[in-house]
């Protein structure tokens, strides 16, 4: 009888040891998504317009735009060309991030077939920080970012912004192209 009870006790002790060992084994969930790079569907190009110089980066997604002010009101017209190299339409917006204009009034227009949208500055952060509707670039087509300046001649100002590019039916999946606009006085 005593032997039987002792064996039962031994069984549970072994069960305890084995259970503890199993509990110490941790099997993690491992998800392994990959990230990779492809050529951009929409490319930034220099429009070659007098008074503004666009310098696309190596990847044609990053761009620096320098506008040289002569004072007064200047409509420089097309400074940046956006070229859609894909076989389906894309759409874009321009969004302000940071920067002020030190008393100047700068107006960056975004023009396309869909109309004209503005980002407006008046001596401080812009009053309109994002073009309020998506502008479409047809498959294989181009559109432009135009720059207009009013009451120039103040100190240089740098505006950091970005161009948002998405597929027409997927506005929640998008790429952000950095765009720096520098206004300098002659």
């Amino acid at each position: 009888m005593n032997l039987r009870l002792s064996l039962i006790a031994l069984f549970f002790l072994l069960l305890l040891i084995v259970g503890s060992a199993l509990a110490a084994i941790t099997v993690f969930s491992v998800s392994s998504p990959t990230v990779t790079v492809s050529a951009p569907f929409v490319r930034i190009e220099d429009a070659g317009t007098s008074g503004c110089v666009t310098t696309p980066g190596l990847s044609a997604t990053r761009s620096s735009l320098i506008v040289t002010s002569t004072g007064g009101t200047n409509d420089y017209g097309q400074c940046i060309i956006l070229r859609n190299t894909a076989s389906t339409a894309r759409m874009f917006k321009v969004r302000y991030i940071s920067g002020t204009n030190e008393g100047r009034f700068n107006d960056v227009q975004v023009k396309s077939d869909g109309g004209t949208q503005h980002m407006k500055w008046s001596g401080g952060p812009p009053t309109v920080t994002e073009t309020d509707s998506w502008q479409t670039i047809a498959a294989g087509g181009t559109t432009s970012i135009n720059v207009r300046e009013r009451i120039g001649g103040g100190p240089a100002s740098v505006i950091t912004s970005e161009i948002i590019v998405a597929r027409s039916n997927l506005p929640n999946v998008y790429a952000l192209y950095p765009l720096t606009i520098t206004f300098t006085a002659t």
Partner: protein
Amino acid sequence: MNGTPRVAVGWVLAALILSASVVVATRTFSYGSSSSSVSGTVAPYIQFVAGADSAASDHVSAFAIGTNRTTFSATLIGFGGAKVVVTDLVNLSNVHAAAHAVTLTGTQVTNEKITNLSLEVFNGGTSLGYLDFMSAAPSRSLGSMAVGAVYTVRLVWACADGATSSDATATMTVRMVVSP
């Protein structure tokens, strides 16, 4: 002689109590592609569900959920010099009848061409924080996930200007740990 059976019975009771204690104290469940022994007896409490933006698009390809719904895979496509945002890549769903604490961890991505890589988890419109793959030990506790709760995971990643598929491709490692 009379005391010996009492000692043996005591051993049995002690062993039973200790066994029960270990079972209760170590109820931490981790799911994985190799955890078939667990999923065979316990349905996964926290499961991955495809997000609204996981379908094939400019920046998401070959998205798939693992058989036991505790893993996901995808190829996420970006552009050199740009940042990519996928707002609703994947969801976390608590399908169990109890709340569970959830923690996501990962391994650091050290590719110098990749300048930003993170997964941000949202409970509705409230951010629960980032799993930042640029940090040395990516980890994000999501707290206790309520019964029926669904969290949205947003991808943000960026790479240096001039980056290409030959020098800016990386694999994220996302681990999920679920506790009582």
